[in-house]
């Protein structure tokens, strides 16, 4: 995306963001509360009006509705997981395949229930009655049901115990290794995120203040001070 600007009403949150994700690449955007991480993702998925260019696979996403963005191959796991609480695990997965019209949906549901054994054990349980970690895994599995080429992932660690967060990231790494899906992750948990991602951006008050390979940013002094607590 080039020169992305977005906001809520008259409040502008993003001031001309330039950000790239290559096919199959794992990219993280680090930033504190209110820096514009969530806004960035919402602008991409069409939940917010934005100015500037967002190009995916050579096609402009500007002005597309959320359902058209999903159709284009982008899935979005919102902050706070966004599981549909009154639906069961299987129903959540099935609705995740809403944009697909092929016959492999049932097979994919089984596939994700195998990939996340905790979901497999709870196929007919209402999503709202599951733990936070289980809901996060369900939200990720549901996003993959649309067979995306790019996954937008908004703070998966939020409200999860460190062990559970680690498990979520482990699973995610397994999946992306297998599917080759690119991930644009926004996180506050810099340690985990930088281990996971190949490249990273640092967002501050709606502007990118640093970027580079994740391994390099891990040793960058300002990043260490601000996000790693070293």
């Amino acid at each position, binding site marked *: 995306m080039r020169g992305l600007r977005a906001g809520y009403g008259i409040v502008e949150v993003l001031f001309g963001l330039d950000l790239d994700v290559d096919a199959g690449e794992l990219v993280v955007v680090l930033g504190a509360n209110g820096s514009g991480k969530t806004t960035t993702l919402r602008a991409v*998925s069409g*939940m917010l009006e934005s100015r500037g260019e967002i190009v995916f696979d050579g096609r402009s996403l500007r002005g597309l*509705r*959320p*359902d058209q963005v*999903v*159709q284009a191959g982008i*899935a*979005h*796991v*919102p902050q706070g997981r*966004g*599981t*549909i*609480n*009154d*639906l069961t695990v299987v*129903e959540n997965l*099935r*609705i*995740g395949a*809403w*944009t697909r019209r092929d016959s492999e949906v049932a097979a994919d549901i089984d596939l994700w229930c195998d990939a996340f054994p905790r979901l497999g054990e709870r196929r007919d349980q209402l999503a*709202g009655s599951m733990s936070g970690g289980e809901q996060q895994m369900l939200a990720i599995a*549901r*996003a993959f*049901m*649309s067979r995306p080429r790019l996954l937008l992932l908004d703070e998966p660690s939020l409200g999860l115990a460190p062990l559970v967060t680690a498990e979520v990231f482990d699973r995610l790494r397994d999946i992306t290794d297998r599917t080759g899906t690119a991930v644009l992750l926004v996180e506050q948990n810099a340690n985990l995120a930088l281990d996971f991602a190949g490249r990273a951006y640092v967002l501050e008050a709606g502007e990118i203040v640093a970027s580079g390979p994740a391994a390099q940013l891990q040793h960058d002094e300002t990043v260490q001070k601000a996000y790693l607590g070293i």
Partner: protein
Amino acid sequence: MTDFLQVLFVGIGDGAIYAMLGLGLVVIYRSTGLLNFAQGEMAMFSTFIVWTVWDLGVPLPLAVIAGMVGGFGVGALAHQIAVRPVGDPHEKPLAVVMVTIGLFVGLNSAAQLVWGTLDRDLPPLFGSGGIEVAGVAIAWQKIGAVIVLAVLALGFYLLFQRTGLGLAMRAVASNSESASLVGVPVPKLLMLGWGLAAAVGTVAGVFTAPGRGLGSNMMQLTLIFGFAAITLGGFDSLLGAVVGGFVVGIASSVVPQYVPGFEKMPLAPAFILILAVLLFRPEGLFGRKQVQRV
């Protein structure tokens, strides 16, 4: 005993009508979290469409189907031009409630403008005859209402539980933002919900009109009974609307007949039910408890 059974069957027949209106209210409650005050007027308006088509010489059952299609259009249009532009009902509930009250007034006036203020006669869908069982006369119209209600309720159940479209409608009701993020076209499904609610309301109107006379105000009492029905059954439960409809119908028929003091207050049992349910079991008989995770 015969008298009691007679009163009971009248209540069951009325209850089926309240339940039909209740089904429409539940469908809209599920998608907006609000009561649609215009539900009765949408039903009245589409019943006038039935009458117009029937008056042209079309057989009544076909005219009813035409009215349901017309009702679907009225509901869908009401959503597109009046409800949707106001905003997300979950964010501005009061504004959307005001819009449904506006629709109530608007549809009522529109019907008077188009069809005048004199009552029209719509014949009963199942004829004016009946059968007699053990000295109790039961009109075909009442039996028909129960059967039609059963078909409608089963249809809604299958739609919501067995089809992808119904799954998407439930997803929108539960979490519209997430539904939108997985690619469900939320506004289209909300429009569909309003259309379906109005279409099922048509049938309630068709069963109300022969007894009361087809006029612009004919559904207003029925709507209050419909509110009582879904309050009792639970705002978000289709089964609750059916059970609640029958309970309210029976109570409104039996109580004024047998309880001294209620003879001249046919609405009182319904109001007492609403009050009692809200006091002692706010989620209704079959509704989901609102539990907030913090």
